[in-house]
């Protein structure tokens, strides 16, 4: 009990004695991790956005003109029994024309001149949610395209695969920046611990002489590293949260992009906690590195 108390107090004393270095270490770690956090936040939000965009994905299956009723029924049956299809809505030529008139009232005269209704009938297909990945959709579309009576299959594929590509790049960037800046954080904390170690050489000698084990001597420094990392990480989340709210407020004020306002969100609590744990791990790694480098704590 007393031993535990002693170890915690030593770690605390280390941080108090090197107050300036400790504060600087926490601040720089916080800003470093905040940079990683921005990428992570972007990544998480884009993925969410992609997910909710895919919810809306509807595939238009346009039918050949003057398709006999029998062939149309057959096609409808095929589509309805397809395991990838969740819902099906038939839009007749007349309905299509009506919708066109509602959506583009000024252009409706274009159709007048053509005499006969040029718009095709179609099925609007909603795919089952488990088959909404760009690859699965592509495969399905290619299959349907070859079915009898199908003139053309249309969906916003380009858009989705572009988004998927973008998310891929951001993921890569997040990983790269994350590794680089995490190494920086480890170094920053490691240096702080090294200073603490060098300032306490004599004390460490004394501890060694009275039979303290290596572990006992090292624990305060491990603790210090972990606490610095956790504090830096928590602070970085604070900075991010602040910047995030500011961003959201700006969007609300300008009124632009009002659609995405409800879509963006901050990390959930569980992720925040995980990030603090990661910071703690980085700090711990920092103290391990500096203990190895200074070579202190040998028996």
């Amino acid at each position, binding site marked *: 009990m007393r*031993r535990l108390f*002693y170890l915690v107090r030593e770690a605390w004393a280390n941080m108090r004695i090197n107050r300036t270095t400790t504060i600087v270490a926490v601040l720089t770690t916080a800003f470093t991790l905040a940079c990683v956090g921005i990428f992570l936040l972007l990544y998480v939000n884009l993925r969410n956005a992609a997910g909710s965009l895919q919810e809306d994905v509807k595939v238009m299956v346009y039918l050949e003109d003057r398709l006999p009723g029998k062939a149309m029924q057959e096609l409808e049956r095929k589509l309805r029994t397809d395991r990838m299809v969740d819902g099906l809505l038939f839009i007749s030529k007349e309905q299509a024309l009506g919708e066109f008139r509602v959506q583009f009232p000024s252009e409706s005269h274009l159709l007048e001149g053509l005499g006969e209704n040029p718009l095709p009938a179609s099925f609007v297909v909603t795919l089952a949610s488990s088959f909404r990945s760009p690859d699965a959709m592509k495969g399905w579309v290619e299959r349907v395209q070859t079915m009898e009576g199908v003139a053309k299959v249309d969906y916003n594929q380009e858009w989705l695969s572009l988004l998927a590509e973008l998310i891929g790049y951001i993921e890569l960037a997040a990983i790269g920046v994350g590794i680089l800046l995490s190494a920086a954080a480890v170094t920053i904390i490691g240096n702080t611990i090294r200073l603490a170690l060098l300032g306490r050489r004599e004390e460490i000698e004394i501890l060694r*002489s*009275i*039979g*303290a084990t290596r572990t006992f001597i090292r624990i305060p420094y491990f603790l210090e590293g972990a606490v610095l990392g956790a504090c830096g990480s928590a602070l970085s989340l604070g900075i991010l949260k602040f910047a995030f709210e500011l961003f959201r407020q700006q969007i609300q004020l300008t009124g632009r992009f009002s659609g995405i306002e409800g879509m963006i969100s901050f990390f959930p609590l569980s992720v925040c906690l995980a990030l603090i744990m990661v910071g703690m791990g980085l700090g711990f790694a920092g103290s391990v590195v500096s203990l190895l480098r200074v070579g202190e704590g040998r028996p």
Partner: protein
Amino acid sequence: MDAIIQLIHVSKWHNRKAALSDVTLEIEKGEFVLLMGASGAGKSTLLRMLIGEEQPDEGQIFVHGRNVTKIRPTEIPYLRRKVGAVFQDFRLLPKKSIFDNVALPLIVQGASEKDIRRKVTEALRAVDVDHKKDQLPNSLSTGEQQRVCIARAIVNGPVVLLADEPTGNLDPERTREIMELFKLINARGTTVIVATHDLHVLNHVNRRVITLVQGVLLSERRIGQGVGV
């Protein structure tokens, strides 16, 4: 009687210069030994090897039944809990009270609060500084600080107590007091080895004297064998 410390043909070189040459030596349980020799004779080197701080280049060393030349690094702390040491370079922690300084070896071992209180009080009483237990080391005189170091070295009840130049900075009166203290500790059953170049110490102790000259064990004489403290 059993030998608690045994050196068998021990040699040690520092920068190609022999700090110890072919030293063979046996110290029995409960003995009080003065290790004499001029500065640079190899006294500190010998004591440091007894707590695994340095390893000999040749020969074997046994302490408390353990071959310290073959000891694993992880076992060294446990050896040091059995061998108390008062070395010149192991000072007190300036920001901790006298009590906390002496409690350190017990804290390190995870002793209970009750044990710590009892043993520290006992050790401080033995060296006669218990009335200053709440003060910081700097407010004590050099002699008193040295006593606190001794209290810290005996607080675990070690089987051997090593002291390297324990009277180095002390006047003759304090020197006498410290040597009396070692005799007292020895009388309670702890084997005591005091290394010093100070010939005046001989005035206060009439026990076994081992002399080193440039790393060679020169002579051994027992003064007043059989005479009590």
